C-alpha cells in the first residue's frame, strides 16, 4: 500500500470550484430535488409545481395577437427596445393595477422579465450581505432563493388566517433593532399567498403600512394572484394606500401565460430610475416581442373574460382538492383559499414532509415540502399542494395516493417508536422544489 502509483493525480470535475462567489454556496444538486424529475411523467400526479393551466387559454386569442404583432410591427418586435418597457403596454398595466385601486404614473412602471426579475433587481438595489429582509412565515421559495443569493438575513414573521400578524411584525422589527441588524424591506404577498393561501385582511393593511412607515421600512408587495379570486375581490393593494413606501410587483404569468415572461414593478420615482438602470445592466431590455404580443392581447381580446374563465377553472380545482382532503386525509389541517393556486397543509408532528418525499415518488404523487418555504429549515410539518394544473379527477387520485404515503410513513415511524430519535437530518438542501418547467 505504501508503494503508491506515481503518475496518478487528482481529477476535480469542476476546475473552477475555488473561484465561485460566496453567494453561490446553496446552488447545488440535491437528492431531494432530483426526485422531482419524475414529475414530468404522466403517471405522476403532481401537486408540487405552480404552473398555470394555460390550456384554458383559447389558441385563437394568442395566435391572433401574435399574427397582428408580426404583421403590423414585425421589425419593432424583433428589435431591442426600451429598458423600461414598451410605453403602450405600461399604459395598459396602469389600467390593470387600477382594478386593485392603484393609481400611478406610466413613468414609474418598469416592465421586467417576469416579476421574478423585478424581485431580483429590487434585492440587488437594496441588499448588502447581512441586511435583513422581513418575509412571511412561510414565504415564496423563489424570493427566498433571491434573498439568499444576495446574502440577506431572512427573518420570518408569523401569519394567521388574516395574513401577516401586525404584532408579530412589530416584535420582529424590535428584535432586529435590538440585535443591531439593519432592516431593508418587508417582502409580502398579500393576496392568496404562496404557499400559505391566505389573504391579508383589509383591516390589517393600514396597520402594516403604518408600522413599516414608522420604522422607515420599505414594503415590496408581490401580487401575482390578486385577480384570481374565487368569491369576492381582494382588498385594495398596499400600494393603493401608500405611493411612497411601497414597490408593487405584478405579473402576466398567472392571468395570461408565463411563457411570455412579462412582469412589472411600480416604484417610487427615485427607485424607479435605479431599477431601469439596473435592468438595462442586467438584460438591456425586456423582450419586445412578448411585450407587443401582450399589448395586442390586452387591446383586442376579452382578457377580463379570460381571467373569469381561469377563475372558474381554479375554483373547481380548489373545490376538488378540499373535497379530496376531506375524504382521504381528514386528520390533517389545511386552509381553504379564496383564490390563487395553493393549499397549505399541516401534518402531524411526527411526520416530516421532506423525508417522506421518496415514498411519495414511489406512489406517483408529488408535493412541495414545507421546508422549501422557510430560510431556517423549519416547515417540515407542512406541505404545499397546488391545485392549478391537474384536473379535478387527478387531484382526487393524487390526494388518495398521498393518503397512502402518509399511512405508510406513519406505520414505519410507529414501528420504530420508542427506539430513539426519529428526527430526520435537516440536510443542506437549499432548493427543494421542482424546477419551474416541471409540474
Amino acid at each position, binding site marked *: *500500500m*505504501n*508503494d*503508491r*502509483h506515481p*503518475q*496518478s*493525480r*487528482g*481529477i*476535480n*470535475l*469542476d476546475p*473552477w*470550484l475555488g473561484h465561485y462567489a460566496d453567494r453561490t454556496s446553496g446552488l*447545488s*444538486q*440535491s*437528492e431531494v430535488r*432530483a*426526485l422531482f*424529475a*419524475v414529475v414530468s*411523467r*404522466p*403517471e*405522476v400526479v403532481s401537486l408540487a409545481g405552480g404552473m398555470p393551466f394555460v390550456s384554458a387559454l383559447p389558441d385563437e386569442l394568442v395566435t391572433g395577437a401574435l399574427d397582428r404583432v408580426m404583421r403590423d410591427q414585425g421589425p419593432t418586435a424583433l428589435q431591442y427596445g426600451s429598458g423600461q418597457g414598451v410605453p403602450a403596454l405600461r399604459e395598459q398595466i396602469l389600467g390593470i393595477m387600477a382594478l386593485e385601486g392603484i393609481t400611478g404614473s406610466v413613468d414609474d412602471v418598469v416592465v421586467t422579465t417576469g416579476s421574478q426579475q423585478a424581485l431580483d433587481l429590487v434585492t440587488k438595489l437594496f441588499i448588502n450581505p447581512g441586511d435583513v429582509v422581513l418575509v412571511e412565515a412561510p414565504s415564496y421559495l423563489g424570493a427566498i432563493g433571491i434573498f439568499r443569493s444576495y446574502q440577506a438575513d431572512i427573518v420570518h414573521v408569523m401569519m394567521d388566517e388574516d395574513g401577516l400578524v401586525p404584532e408579530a411584525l412589530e416584535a420582529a422589527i424590535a428584535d432586529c433593532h435590538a440585535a443591531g441588524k439593519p432592516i431593508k424591506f418587508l417582502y409580502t404577498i398579500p393576496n392568496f399567498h404562496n404557499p400559505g393561501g391566505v389573504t391579508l385582511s383589509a383591516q390589517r393593511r393600514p396597520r402594516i403600512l403604518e408600522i413599516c412607515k414608522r420604522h422607515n421600512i420599505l414594503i415590496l408587495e408581490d401580487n401575482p394572484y390578486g385577480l384570481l379570486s374565487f368569491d369576492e375581490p381582494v382588498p385594495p393593494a398596499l400600494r393603493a394606500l401608500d405611493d411612497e413606501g411601497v414597490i408593487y410587483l405584478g405579473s402576466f404569468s398567472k392571468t395570461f401565460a408565463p411563457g411570455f415572461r412579462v412582469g412589472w414593478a411600480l416604484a417610487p420615482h427615485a427607485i424607479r430610475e435605479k431599477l431601469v438602470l439596473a435592468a438595462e445592466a442586467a438584460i438591456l431590455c425586456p423582450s419586445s416581442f412578448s411585450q407587443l404580443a401582450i399589448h395586442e392581447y390586452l387591446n383586442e381580446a376579452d382578457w377580463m373574460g379570460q381571467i373569469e374563465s381561469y377563475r372558474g377553472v381554479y375554483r373547481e380545482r380548489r373545490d376538488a382538492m378540499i373535497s379530496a382532503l376531506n375524504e382521504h386525509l381528514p386528520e390533517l389541517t389545511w386552509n381553504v383559499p379564496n383564490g390563487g393556486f395553493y393549499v397549505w397543509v399541516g401534518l402531524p408532528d411526527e411526520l416530516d414532509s421532506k*423525508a*417522506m418525499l*421518496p*415514498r411519495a*415518488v*414511489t406512489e*406517483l404523487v408529488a408535493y412541495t415540502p414545507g421546508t422549501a418555504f422557510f430560510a431556517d429549515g423549519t416547515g417540515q410539518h407542512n406541505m404545499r399542494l397546488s391545485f392549478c394544473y391537474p384536473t379535478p379527477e387527478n387531484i382526487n387520485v393524487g390526494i388518495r395516493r398521498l393518503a397512502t404515503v402518509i399511512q405508510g*410513513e406513519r406505520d*414505519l*415511524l410507529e*414501528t*420504530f*417508536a*420508542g*427506539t*430513539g*430519535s*426519529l*428526527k*430526520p*437530518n435537516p440536510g*443542506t438542501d437549499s432548493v427543494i422544489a421542482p424546477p419551474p418547467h416541471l409540474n
Partner: protein
Amino acid sequence: MPNPTLNIMVLAGGISHEREVSLRSGRRVADALLEAGHEVTIVDPDARLFDLLMNEKPDVVWPAVHGASGEDGALLDLLDASGVSYVGPHAASARLAWNKPVAKTLVQRAGIATPESITLPREAFRELGASTVLEVVTQGLGHDLVIKPAQGGSSQGVSLVSSADALPRAMVDAYTYYEVALLEKRAYGTEVAVTVIDDGSGPRALPVVEIVPSDGFYSFEARYNAGETTFFTPARLSEMVLAAVSEAAVVVHETLGLDYLSRIDFIIDESGNPIFLEANALPGLTETSSAPLAIEASGTAASTLFNALALRAAQR
C-alpha cells in the same frame, strides 16, 4: 471494413427515484454513439415503448434506465421477450446485482471479502420488536455501520451511522426507499470503482478509479455535483494492489453474469485487500460518474468503446 451505421434507441428516464441520473446517462451515451456515426434516438420508456419498438425496429436498444424496472431485470426480460437486441446483461444477472444482499453472498462465495452485514425486511422489526432487533444488530455488527436500501443506487436512502442513537432514523430513511434494508459494518480504506468492459473479447477491467469525496461520504450530492469529489485514475495504490482489484472486479462481473459494461465498487483495506461493496449492471455514465473517467484513462474514446458494444449487441 467500414463501420455499419446502426439505428440505436437509447432508453433513459423512467419513473424511478433515479430518473434524473438516467436522463443524464442517456444523453452521454447518445452523444458518444452519434459521434461513432450511428443514428440515435433517446426514448423515455412508457406505455408506448413496445409499440414503438415494433414500429421502429431499432438495430440495438441501449437501456440506460437506472433504478427499479431498469436495473431489476424487468425491462431487460421484456426486451428479451420482444426479441430486441440490447446492450447489457441478461435480466437474471441484472437482478442478482440489483439485489445487494444476494450479490454480496454470491461474491463472498467466490472468495472475495465483503463487509459483514445483516439484511432486514421492515417486517422483521414489527415481528421481533424494533428495540430488540436494533440491539441485536449493534451487538453483532457494532455501531459503525452503513445503512442502505437493499435495492437502489446513487446512494439514495444511504446513511453512515456511528452511534446507536442514529440507527433508528437511518433505518427509517432506508425503508422510505425500499422495504428491505442492508445493514453493513463500515469498511475503511481507499474507495474505488472498477469499470469492466466486454466487447466480445472477454471481460477486462479499465483503470481503477479512486474516489475521494470532500466530506468523506460518497453521497448523492458528492456524486452529482461536479467538484464535490476528487478522482484519482489510476487509484493511488501499488501496481500489485491495482492488479488484484482489477482481477477481483472481473471475478465479480463473471460471478454475477454481468455483461458488456459493469461497475464494481470496493473499499481497499490497509492490507491492500479489496472489500466488495456492490455491483452495478447498468453503471451511471453521467458527466460526474466514475465510469467515463475510467474509459478516458483507458486511452480509448467513449465513442469507440460504445461503438464496439453496440456492434456486439447488434449481432446478439
